[in-house]
Structures are given as C-alpha cells and as structure tokens.
C-alpha cells in the first residue's frame, strides 16, 4: 500500500492504494464518492467518466497511482454546494435525459468535456462525442437534446416536448 493524494472537486484528499487500485475504486471505496459509477469495468460503457486535469477519462481504466497530484473532477462537484444543479444537470432534468440514471454521471462528465471544447456542437457532434457512453434506457435522444439545450441552442425542433 502507498498513500495517494489528489485534488478532488477542489479539495485535497488522500488515501491508501495498491498498485492495482483503479481510480474508480479509489474514488468510490476509499473516498466514498460513489457518484462515479462502474458499469462494465472494461472501458466500454463510460459510466465512470471523470475529468483528470481537465480531460475526460474512464476512471475504471486508469490506476489511482497515475492520478497522484492530479486534479480530479467528479459528478459530485458539478452542482453548487447548496445543491443547485449546473446548467447541464438542469437540462438533463428538464429534457428527461435520464431514466434509471445509472449512466448519467458519465454522460454529464463527457458532455461537460464536449461543451468545454466545443460550446455550440451540432447534433451529430454530440452523438459522435458520446460514442464511449452507453445508455440502455433512453435511446440517447433526450440526452442529446439536453446537451444541445445546455449549450444554449434551440431544441424545440428536435422533438416534441
């Protein structure tokens, strides 16, 4: 065991990790931040997407020790401290961008990554960017709509409310 320290959602946090401890495992089991979900554990489903030094990665396919000294942002850090949802989260709620909610943390973190680099994406760009995020409930349509709405675009023509 070694001690790993990283800045998670703006706060410095430390914990013990083995060589094989995954970042997803460290966040969930050591730091208790269970918002980062583990769906497939094979880097396909994207439920575990977090940002490491500002870049979206799959936390189930990165070692905790690789994140030593890094700045990590998870779904827990997205809403304001009083619980007010950020624009992207609110758009998911407004446009019914989730059903069971399991994939949602990864969807939000991937979408945030997209909007940071491409503030006004097209529908095709949103769908392409979500290639590594799998949802088994929604058929993606309302997720895409929510992301476009969060980017400030008019989504009234995309589908009926």
């Amino acid at each position: 065991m070694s001690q790993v320290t990283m800045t998670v959602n703006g706060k410095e946090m430390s914990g013990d990790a083995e060589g094989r401890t995954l970042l997803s495992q460290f966040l969930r089991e050591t730091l208790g931040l269970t918002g980062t979900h583990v769906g497939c554990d094979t880097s396909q489903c994207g439920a575990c997407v977090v940002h490491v030094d500002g870049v979206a990665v799959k936390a189930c396919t990165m070692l905790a020790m690789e994140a030593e000294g890094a700045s990590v942002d998870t779904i827990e850090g997205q809403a304001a401290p009083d619980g007010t949802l950020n624009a992207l989260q609110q758009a998911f709620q407004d446009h019914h961008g989730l059903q069971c909610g399991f994939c949602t943390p990864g969807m939000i973190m991937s979408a945030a990554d997209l909007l940071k680099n491409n503030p006004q994406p097209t529908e095709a760009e949103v769908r392409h960017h979500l290639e590594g995020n799998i949802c088994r409930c929604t058929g993606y349509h309302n997720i895409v709509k929510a992301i476009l709405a969060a980017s400030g675009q008019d989504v009234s023509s995309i589908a009926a409310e």
Partner: protein
Amino acid sequence: MYNFDFEKPSTIADAVSALGTEDAQALGGGQTLLPTMKQRLASPSKLVSLNGITEMHGICTGDDGALCIGGATTHADVAAGAGAYPGLAGLAAGIGDPAVRARGTIGGSLANNDPSACYPAGALASGATLVTNAREIAADDYFQGMFTTALDEGEILTEVRFPVPEASNYQKFEQPASRFALVGVFVAKYADGVRVAVTGASEEGVFRWTEAEAVLSGTFSADAIAGMAPGSDGMISDLHGTGAYRAHLVGVLTRRAVTAAS
C-alpha cells in the same frame, strides 16, 4: 487483476532500469493493458508508467521535415497536434472514443501491435522510424506479426518519426462494438512512390499491399485499382466477417482512401 508494484519514473534511463525487474511491464495509457490484466491474461510483477517522462510527450518537426511524436503522446494530442500530417491526425481522431483517446498513447499502441489497431497501419504506410532507448527501427522491420514487434524485453519506444507524405488518408471499417478496425487501410503518397498498409485483415497483422502500391505509384487514382483485392488466404475469419469479406474490404477501403487523398 492481480496486484503488482507500480513505478512512475521521470526519465527514460530510470524507466529502463525499473524495467530490469523480472516480469516488469511498461505502461502507456493502459487502455489495452489494464483490461487485459483485469481478465488475468497478463499478470506483470511491476508496471512502469511512462507517462511521467516529459521528453516522451509532444510533437515536433525534425530537421528532415519528419513529424516526430513522443511515445507517451496521447491519441487526442496527436489528433489535435499533427496538423502537418492530416492523414495521421485523422487516424488518431478515430481511435476508440474521446475518453480512450485522452489516455491511450501512440507508443503503447505500436508496442502492443494489436492486429486490428489503427496506428500500425499509419506507421507502416509512412515508412516511419521507431526510436527506442537503444536504437532506431524501420517500420518495415518493426512489425513482426500479431502482437509481435522487433522490441526486445524492456526496450521502450520513445519516439516515432513520420516522413510527411504529399497526400494521405486512412479509411477504417469499424467493428461496431469495439470500434477497432474490422479492416483499416492507410494510403500515403510520397515523391518516390505510394505505400499502402492494411490493418485488421491479416492473420499476420499489419501488412503492405504491394500490388496496389505498384499500380498507384504509376497512376494515383481509385480507377487504377478498380476491382483489385488481395487474396483471401491468410485473412482473418471470425464471427464479424470471413476472410473473403475482409479481402474485399481491403480493395474498397483502399479506393476510398485514394479518392479522399486525391
């Protein structure tokens, strides 16, 4: 996965020394290695991360005009930073998904030499030079069959040098679940001839389709290779497609790549 020791050196020399331990293994972005270890198909005693070695990150242009890419450079960084070689940037932009591209590295991909990976086609079609801590290896000598390369035990791919072609394009027919290439073809047109490299198709891993190269070096047009396809002997046959189907795809994708590059 089984436990292992972890080291993250900051210099190539320290990494080489760390890899001296029995069953030690270099770690790039881990996008293939970690899933493989979870399945217990690999169980190294130690992982030596190459991601902390500053000199192995980044893209520059060499004195001879070649694009030099550090072994620990991610696919996302190549996609964004290899503008001088658009065919290669396009290849990098199509690997996996955005989160995978943010971690996966060019050195990791080329050291693994998955028979369906994209980078081997780009490196072979470019006649790239693979630079290690010990020597320089020509791409034509480097790829030695499925998951097999000229790298010795503990040898680290530190940089890859790509001569920049006059025109190039990579076409990938994706296996829809994994997004690996069911077949991928990279076409690169240089002043002294055209090179065509194929991934995903052959049981021997990436290969050059020399018959098409010979024709395209004379006339660089899709029409010049109309109806051509490599033989289906030795092509991969699995539940995704037969060898004959893959051989057919090689012809189709090569024509598309030539058209896109023209």
